[in-house]
């Protein structure tokens, strides 16, 4: 590659790093970094501790040992692999190859693609006008991905690597090789799609048919071979009797020994083979094919005859202005553009305008329509399975699937929903002139994600209620009576209320907690963006990469601490109430559940209010001109 391009790459990296380091002159960034590093040390230090292998406490992280009584017991992935039969590793190897085969086939079949070069507009203006060959520009674009790949490989080797330092270095190199290969393959795939589009007409159609046919055939053949291997492997697993671990080991070994599957997946098995090499010699030999594939992929990409300039420039412009995905979501027709989450009247609380605007950024579908659609879906989930011979397992699966989102959306609200200050700070020049106090503005910004999280949580709880109701309805229709519940009978012995009422009261008890947790989670993110605007990525899109990873770690640590502080008083209050009932020998009535929910949520609510007030104060002193506010 041209020396000037290396220079540009290195200087860009150095500039980015210096900009970040300069931020550390502000004490809050320095404190944030120390906190982040401490948090990282906690997580990274443990796997690294395994390498050191020191410590005489009950928990010897270094050797992956824990003392139970007088005995030392090994734990961790290495210990698990040791317990499995030798052939099981081949099964794991095979499963990874299956996942890769599926991912690659689906990736190739996906209709979307992006231009080959994902460079910024200013970079492209400089590079395309410079006396550089097309190949040099592509190499530069590929090199831009390397810092992320290297960081990803480092993280993989820390968390997934096992064994001594040389072994981990080997793992790191292989991880880098694998991720680079994936990056090149992905670029090649985008190239193919672009060339197919360029060809147009029947040629493009023929190419797509061949691709779909080939990929489909390959998947069907692999699926059939896997199904056959699965039957054999199941028989092998049954031979292990009650020993579950041995059963899993036998199953994996059975899968791994299947010749047709191994043949069909041979190229993919070869690509990840070094991860499974047990000796340095085997590792060295296994590296040969992935390295050859890397070289071949590189040649494939850099020798492209495709004209990428126009597409790359257009993409860069679009990225500069707004996100392409967002634009696709926008309705083209007039009626669609008039849709809104709810009618916004000119009079009333001004905060509502901000909530309305933020909800509109997510979807133009009205809240009423959303609720109606949700209720319709719940009705379907209730009625359709009830009239079919649906097994109880299905209902249990649906109920369990509905149980997770309330907790996840509430806790991760700040990470999942970004339609708050993280988007609006890009418009700080407009927002700062609005006639609203800081705390009211931040409260409105926090409200959008909380509403979204609450809607999702309500729908999920509705799914749980629908599963229970449908199960009862099915029993009733089959003449088995309406008392058949998904919950064990012992549970109902303590619940002195009819099932539908008890379920609604349980939902009413959970909902305040969901709202309070979501408010804390979102308020932390909004406070973080005001305290560390130079670190938090702005804009609608969640990004990957080292910076985002670090930011998520710091914010997650803050979230955990805040939640712990907020939850403890609430749980103490709730525990006191439960304890009082226990002492008095009175069971808790379902009517008390909503009260308990509110009591537990109250300290969290107070905490969220505190965070909002703090962020509001920060907003009032916020100086957009002193911060780096961009989507980069």
């Amino acid at each position, binding site marked *: 590659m041209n020396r000037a391009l290396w220079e540009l790459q290195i200087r860009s990296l150095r500039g980015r790093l210096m900009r970040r380091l300069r931020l550390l002159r502000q004490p809050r960034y320095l404190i944030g970094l120390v906190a982040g590093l401490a948090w990282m040390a906690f997580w990274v230090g443990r796997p690294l501790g395994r390498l050191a292998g020191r410590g005489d406490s009950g928990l010897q992280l270094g050797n992956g040992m824990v003392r139970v009584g007088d005995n030392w017991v090994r734990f961790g992935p290495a210990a698990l692999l040791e317990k499995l039969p030798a052939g099981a590793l081949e099964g794991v190897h095979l499963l990874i190859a299956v996942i890769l085969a599926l991912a690659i086939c689906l990736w190739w079949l996906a209709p979307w693609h992006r231009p080959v070069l994902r460079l910024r507009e200013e970079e492209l203006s400089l590079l395309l006008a410079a006396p550089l060959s097309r190949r040099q520009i592509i190499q530069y674009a590929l090199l831009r991905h390397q810092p992320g790949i290297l960081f990803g490989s480092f993280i993989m080797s820390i968390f997934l690597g096992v064994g001594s330092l040389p072994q981990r270095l080997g793992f790191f190199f292989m991880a880098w090789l694998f991720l680079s290969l994936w990056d090149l393959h992905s670029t090649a795939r985008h190239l193919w799609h672009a060339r197919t589009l360029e060809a147009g007409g029947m040629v493009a159609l023929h190419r797509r048919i061949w691709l779909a046919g080939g990929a489909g055939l390959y998947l069907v053949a692999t699926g059939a071979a896997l199904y056959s291997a699965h039957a054999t492997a199941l028989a092998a697993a049954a031979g292990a009797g009650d020993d579950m671990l041995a059963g899993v080991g036998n199953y994996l070994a059975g899968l791994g020994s299947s010749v047709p599957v191994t043949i069909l997946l041979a190229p993919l098995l070869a690509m990840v083979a070094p991860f499974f090499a047990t000796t340095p010699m085997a590792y060295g030999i296994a590296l040969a094919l992935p390295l050859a594939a890397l070289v071949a992929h590189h040649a494939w990409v850099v020798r492209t005859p495709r004209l990428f300039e126009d597409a790359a420039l257009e993409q860069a412009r679009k990225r500069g202005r707004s996100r392409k995905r967002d634009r696709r979501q926008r309705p083209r027709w007039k009626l669609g553009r*008039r849709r809104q989450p709810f009618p916004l009247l000119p009079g009333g609380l001004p905060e509502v305008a901000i909530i309305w605007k933020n909800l509109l950024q997510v979807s133009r579908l009205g809240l009423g329509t959303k609720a109606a659609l949700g209720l319709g879906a719940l009705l379907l989930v209730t009625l359709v399975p009830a009239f079919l011979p649906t097994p109880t397992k299905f209902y249990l699966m649906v109920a369990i699937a509905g149980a997770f989102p309330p907790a996840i959306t509430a806790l991760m609200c700040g990470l999942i929903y970004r339609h708050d200050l993280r988007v609006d700070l890009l418009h700080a*020049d407009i927002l700062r002139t*609005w006639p*609203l106090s800081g705390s009211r503005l931040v409260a409105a910004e926090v409200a959008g994600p909380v509403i979204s999280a609450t809607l999702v949580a309500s729908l999920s709880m509705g799914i749980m209620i629908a599963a229970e109701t449908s199960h009862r309805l099915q029993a009733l229709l089959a003449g088995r009576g309406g008392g058949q519940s998904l919950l064990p009978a012992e549970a109902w012995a303590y619940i002195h209320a009819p099932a539908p009422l008890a379920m609604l009261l349980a939902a009413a008890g959970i909902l305040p907690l969901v709202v309070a947790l979501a408010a804390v989670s979102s308020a932390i993110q909004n406070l973080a963006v005001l305290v560390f605007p130079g670190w938090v990525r702005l804009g609608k899109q969640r990004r990957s990469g080292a910076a985002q990873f670090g930011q998520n770690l710091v914010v997650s640590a803050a979230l955990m601490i805040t939640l712990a502080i907020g939850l403890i008083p609430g749980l103490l209050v709730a525990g006191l109430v439960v304890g009082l009932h226990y002492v008095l020998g009175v069971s808790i009535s379902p009517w008390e559940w909503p009260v308990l929910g509110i009591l537990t949520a109250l300290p969290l609510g107070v905490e969220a209010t505190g965070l909002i007030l703090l962020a509001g104060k920060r907003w009032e002193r916020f100086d*957009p*001109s*002193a911060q780096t506010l961009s989507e980069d």
Partner: protein
Amino acid sequence: MPLVQINKLVKEYDGLRAVDDLDLELEAGVVLGLVGPNGAGKTTTLRCLSGIIPPTSGCILVNGHDLEKERVPARRALAFVPDEPRLFEDLTVRDHLAVVARLYGVTDGRRRGAELLARFDLSEREEAYPSELSRGMKQKFMIALALLHRPRLLILDEPLTGLDPAAMRHMKRTLQEMAREGMAVMVSSHMLHLVEEICDRILILQKGQKIMQGSLSEIRARLPALDASADLEEIFMHATGGDDQP
């Protein structure tokens, strides 16, 4: 009582004084032109005055309200149009009007919004997203949006950039009309002939400091070296030492 009072305004960035001890008063019905070489502190002054950036020291009163201590009433009285129109990408023109109407409690927001769109020749673009508007259209829409809540003070940073000649003429008329209706208008621009044409008073800034202020004739009178017909460009060059630059 003046509509705007700026007392000893200072804004520093990393030790560099962008605005240095600025005093200013602006009456209702006056169009004030802010001119100065690049880096003179024009945009910083306007951004401080509109409440976007907090000053390092000094006090700004808008309509009798301290911009820092009485944030809400002070902000209600003003509107700011930045040099680079940054609208919300997911909101149509109509949505923007609805949000601003609610924020400022403009009860006749819908009617007034339609009037303003018609006035700026944007009625056809009511359902358009910002990405579907040209730069000039965005600029016009930003001004329409700023006027929605009938502010007492209108602050515009380079409002004529990107406008075609017809739009420019329209804009000039609009600003003069606004002033006639009793609004105070503050405009920064490098287009000196336009500033000369539309502004009643002129403030020349250099290195963050006020070097001259007054009507064109008042400023001209203070520079005896220039002849009586000297235009703003000549005055500007003379006052800022632009003539001495290579």
